[in-house]
């Protein structure tokens, strides 16, 4: 039954249940157990944020600590996936894609096409993204749009503990390579999560809230920001239809278009920097496919075109917040030619 647990616990539970369900599931990453080769306790960390905690002892030999060699172990996860395993590799910060991107986008993503449809590479790369922990420019980026541009990858941005568990289980069972982007500021967020295993299919948006006046599409942590904004808007009589696409690739274009056909207005909230991100992607989609339904220009609420700043004073300005979403939405709703 549903009980309230954290995003971190939901991810841990998904890994545990999938490892029980399927012996080919292994996890690997820097300090995924923690303490390899050290004199103290094994399983000292369970990942840098504790997502894999406790799995090391429960699944002997299936939780692998790695050297700090992202290319080698991400590549190893991909290689193992071609030989019957379902590895879940943890790329500690999404920012570190810079040191292993070749293995992801030139190898894993292309095998199936390049080899004429004869490759199956069921690898999951879990990675932590997003700003808010004062982690500065190299540990705070929202780089999921880059992965989204790569054909052959599936990209997941869970917005709640419920989504985190079901989407991770689906990612592990999926036969394609999946980039699973966890927002670092959400690990302690709590929500209702069934105890049983379940999967959430990719490419199906969640209707977070129903409304008739404006569509707000938000990704990852921005879903809760959008929901908060929608509550405030409701108080002033604006009913927003809030959509969480859950995955950026595949993208549930149908639900987005269906909603905009109904509301005629669109606001997209994306924590990524503004060029070539999911906001521009959704805006382009709607402008092309639902132009006739639009009653106002599309608004995009994103981070500015800067690296993520360190100082809390700056970082708080950097991250889109509910007030900016409210303002953008009001401007769309109140827009007149």
């Amino acid at each position: 039954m549903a009980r309230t647990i954290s995003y971190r616990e939901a991810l841990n539970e998904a890994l545990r249940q999938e490892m029980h369900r399927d012996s080919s599931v292994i996890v690997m990453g820097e300090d995924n157990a923690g303490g390899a080769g050290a004199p103290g306790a094994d399983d000292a960390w369970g990942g840098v944020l504790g997502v894999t905690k406790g799995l090391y002892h429960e699944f002997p030999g299936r939780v692998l600590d790695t050297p700090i060699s992202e290319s080698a172990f991400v590549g190893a996860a991909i290689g193992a996936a071609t030989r019957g395993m379902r590895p879940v590799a943890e790329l500690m910060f999404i920012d570190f894609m810079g040191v292993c991107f070749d293995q992801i986008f030139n190898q894993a993503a292309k095998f199936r096409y390049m080899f004429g449809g004869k490759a199956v590479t069921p690898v999951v790369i879990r990675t932590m993204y997003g700003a808010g922990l004062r982690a500065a420019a190299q540990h705070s980026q929202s780089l999921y749009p880059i992965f989204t541009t790569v054909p052959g990858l599936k990209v997941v941005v869970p917005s709640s503990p419920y989504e985190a568990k079901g989407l991770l289980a689906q990612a592990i069972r999926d036969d394609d390579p999946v980039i699973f982007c966890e927002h670092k500021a959400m690990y302690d967020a709590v929500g209702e999560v069934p105890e049983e295993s379940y999967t959430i299919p990719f490419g199906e948006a969640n209707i977070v809230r129903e409304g008739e006046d404006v569509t707000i599409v938000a990704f990852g942590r921005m879903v809760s920001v959008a929901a908060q904004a929608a509550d405030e808007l409701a108080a002033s009589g604006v009913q927003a239809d809030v959509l969480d696409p859950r995955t950026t690739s595949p993208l549930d274009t149908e639900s987005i278009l269906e909603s905009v056909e109904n509301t005629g207005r669109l606001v997209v909230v994306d924590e990524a920097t503004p060029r070539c991100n999911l906001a521009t992607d959704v805006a382009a989609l709607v402008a092309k496919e639902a132009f006739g339904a639009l009653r106002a220009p599309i608004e995009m609420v994103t981070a500015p075109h800067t690296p993520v700043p360190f100082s809390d004073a700056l970082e708080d300005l950097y991250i889109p917040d509910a007030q900016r979403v409210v303002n953008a939405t009001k401007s769309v709703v109140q827009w007149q030619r």
Partner: protein
Amino acid sequence: MTETLSTPAAGELNAEGLLDAYRTMRTIRVFEERVHDEFATGEIPGFVHLYAGEEASATGVCSHLDARDSIASTHRGHGHCIAKGVDPVEMMAEIYGKRTGSCHGKGGSMHIADLSKGMLGANGIVGGGPPLICGTALAAKQQNNGGVGVAFFGDGASNQGTTLESLNLASVWNLPAIFVAENNGYAEATASTWSVAADNIADRAAGFGMPGVIVDGFDFFAVHEAAGEAISRAREGGGPTLIEVKFTRYFGHFEGDQQAYRADEVANARDKLDCLKRFRARVTESGQLESSALDTVDSEVAALIESAVTEAKAAPKPTGVDLETDVYVSY
């Protein structure tokens, strides 16, 4: 005489094995020389990188491998594909960009693969293969099936971080992985004596806590024996090995390379060191095989490659319906 033929020394091939090895090397050679000739006519699209001269390496290593085992290759991958059992007829069609090719014309020369045979693909990225092989070796270890992974890479890739990270990871995880550094002297046009700061690629093994050996890459028997030792060691849980195979490629880096950077080493190698010539001389002098048996293989291989080219030329190209398929398993 019959006694020695039926009872080879430990680790050595019997007559059938020798004939198979010869057939593989011969197939690679004729395949590559034919691609060289056909490329010149302009009918083959894109880039091709030919393996001629290096046959003993792929053949000497892969003759120890079976279905449990996997290999990763390089942009110079035709030889590895043939040695691991990929069908040369489908390969030729792939090189011509045809729908009947190994990858339905979607991969081309640099991406021929057959995962069902443990061939993880030729690889257009220098240093792309070693991390993958850590993974296939890990899978074999997890599945406890005695399988090994073999990463073929060149002297150029020996300087890539991926390769060095993989050597380290393979040692840290004690993986059943074999790293075969095929040192043909040049990374494109840059000499390995200049670009490899260690004096031998094999010397780097010591820094990663694994054995590193150098073998004569023109000598099938030298490669076969060293690879056999490394592979049986890996199968038994002994961990990874780095084998540096030294030789010369007969053609340029890619077809069209004028090779102004090279001296007369190719002529010397073709004349004095050639793996096929030496193989033939030695197995006939030792009485293990009759010349006529090798001649038969030669004519069979010639016929095979001839029909591969004929079929490839006649085969249809992929069409628009093929453009957007095979990106994902599920959409």
